[in-house]
């Protein structure tokens, strides 16, 4: 049974133009010790999925789902306390904008110590606990590659460069020894070496401690290097999902293919300075979503049927939603 199981999650938000479904029947599941990548263009709703899993969305917005289970328990039906208990002990989240997600008025030390769960504290007296908390924090910082822990811990978020904040957020998320780590673009803007270091850390935790990761990113290279499975999102709709090899080798959805093609590193055969393939246009804004398959207007294979939402089909754990998939004859 998957650890996190989401089926047909729909999220409606109110904009000045009325209610818009920013997420439209998204399905996503994460197994124990699985690294799942969530890809999609900017504005496709990746962060919204993350936020709805942890319940960090405004109460006004409407969330509905056929299923949204954590280890078999329905997250949406839970009381706030139960849900918080889960996010406190079992799920950790790194929000997208690392420095903005840190409290500007508290030192980083206060913040990371706040995240340390009580079961990690073994000592009895409060001064011992205090020291132990600090030790844990330092240890965690070293793990993500922050050397100057004293300076870092005594600083405020705005005093540090962005990449340190990112690393710190990762450390803070890992400090509670979660079962599932949800990381929203944790490596954006990092230089390659640092990025690789973080990726290695996550992979190691995955291997040794069975940590599951939901890895949200634009960086196909990083995803390919680390993730086991991937889900592709376009405009709040799940387009395709499956194991990384399958998707990479035989993308079924035109959008997935375009996405993969756009990364030059995937294509050794590509001569330098040759045009990269891409889809025309940009992702539509929330107020101007096309009906049916939302890729419609940009899709090279679009036909009239595309104004209807295609049903999701499954083949060998590889699912897609397209009327006219690639590599497949018409059903």
């Amino acid at each position, binding site marked *: 049974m998957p650890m996190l199981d989401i089926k047909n999650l729909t999220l409606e938000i109110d904009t000045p133009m009325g209610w818009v479904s920013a997420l439209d029947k998204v399905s996503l599941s994460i197994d124990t010790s699985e690294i799942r990548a969530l890809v999609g263009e900017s504005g496709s709703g990746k962060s919204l999925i993350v*936020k709805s899993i*942890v*319940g*960090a969305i405004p109460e*006004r917005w409407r969330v509905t789902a056929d299923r949204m289970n954590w280890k078999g328990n329905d997250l949406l039906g839970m009381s*706030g*306390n139960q849900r*918080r*208990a*889960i*996010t*406190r*002990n079992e799920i*950790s*989240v790194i*929000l*997208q*904008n690392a420095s*903005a*997600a*840190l*409290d*500007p*008025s*508290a030192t980083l030390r206060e913040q990371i110590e*706040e*995240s340390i769960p009580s079961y990690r504290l073994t000592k009895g007296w409060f001064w011992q606990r205090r020291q132990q908390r600090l030790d844990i924090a330092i240890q965690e910082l070293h793990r993500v*590659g*922050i*050397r*100057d822990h004293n*300076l*870092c811990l005594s*600083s*405020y978020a*705005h*005093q*540090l*460069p962005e990449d*340190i904040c990112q690393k710190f957020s990762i450390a803070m998320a890992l400090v509670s020894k979660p079962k599932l780590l949800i990381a929203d673009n944790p490596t954006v803007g990092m230089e390659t*070496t*640092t990025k690789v*270091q973080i990726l290695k850390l996550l992979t190691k935790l995955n291997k040794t401690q069975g940590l599951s990761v939901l890895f949200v990113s634009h960086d196909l290279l990083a995803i390919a290097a680390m993730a086991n499975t991937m889900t592709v999102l376009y405009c709040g709709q799940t387009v395709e999902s499956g194991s990384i090899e399958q998707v990479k080798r035989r993308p079924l959805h035109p959008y997935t293919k375009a996405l993969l093609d756009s990364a030059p590193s995937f294509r050794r055969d590509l001569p330098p300075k040759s045009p990269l393939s891409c889809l025309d246009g940009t992702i539509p804004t929330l107020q101007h979503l096309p009906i049916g398959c939302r890729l419609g207007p940009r899709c090279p294979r679009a036909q009239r049927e595309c104004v209807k939402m295609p049903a999701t089909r499954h083949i060998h754990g590889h699912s897609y939603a397209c009327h006219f998939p690639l590599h497949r004859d018409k059903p």
Partner: protein
Amino acid sequence: MLIAIARRLNLLIITLFILCLASYVLAFLFPGDALTNLSGIPALSADQSHQLQLMYALNEGWFSGFWTYLKLTLNGDWGVSLNSQTPIFEDILKLLPASLELSLYAMVISLVVGLPLGVLAGLKHRSYTDMSILSVSLTGFSFPVFWLSLLLILIFSLQLGYLPMSGRISLLFDIPHSTGFILVDILRSEMPVKDAALFDALRHLVLPTLSLSIVTTALVIRLIRRSVVTVYASDFIKAAYTKGLSHSQVFWRHGMKNALLPIMPQLAMQFTVLLTNAMIVEVIFSWPGIGEWLIQAIYQRDFPAIRGGMLAVSAVVVTFTISVELLVRILYPLNKRQFYAQT
């Protein structure tokens, strides 16, 4: 940190210096004889005038004149009032506590009422609660203070007869002046009917404080509401929730701190508004404070008193605002720090 403190202190000193300079220059700007405006003694004889000139070093160039003035000012020799011929500095020392007391209580009320309401409105952003609190506060700070005071007097004193309408305490009580804060003075005095006096003083406080605090409460509500809304919309609050903190934990550990700290200086600025409005309220309620005194001084063209009052009030305001700002800086350092840790 030290630098921040030093900077504020520097600012404070420079500001006070500028204020002194302004008050010195005012003596020459005001109509009439500068010497009279400085000392408050209408120069009678040539001899007396000569003596005053020496005292204020007026014939030794403006710089040493100002220097002498500064020394005199620091020594508490602010001249005498043209009108009553009493030393201004002593008058101010006596009157300032009354104004401060009034403003302080009004500030406390504004905070006690405005804080929860503002936070409530901020948390329930865009709900009906929010709307109603917001409308009430908008109405509140559109009131001309003088009109509001008059309305309050009309209703509570004259129609209903619940509350007295002038002074700090019934004149029947003869409270010895020690600190100038009447409640403190009553408690410190050894009079036999302390309770009655305290009760009477409190009754006298109600209306002026109320009319002062309505406007500031409205402002405080709006300030806090806006700040709470911004803070609650920000990422780090979401992040705090995702850490599994409960509503109250988030509220107390992250929400309040971040909502209140940045607006502390602005809240402190409300004290300025209060002191200004207090001048009007004092006139209406015959509150023997510095504002009423200052306005009487203007009516009577008592220039030394005007200068002194201005210097005192603005010095109090400046000191207050700068210290609050300093406090905030200490709690919430904003200066950049260089980070050398490299991977």
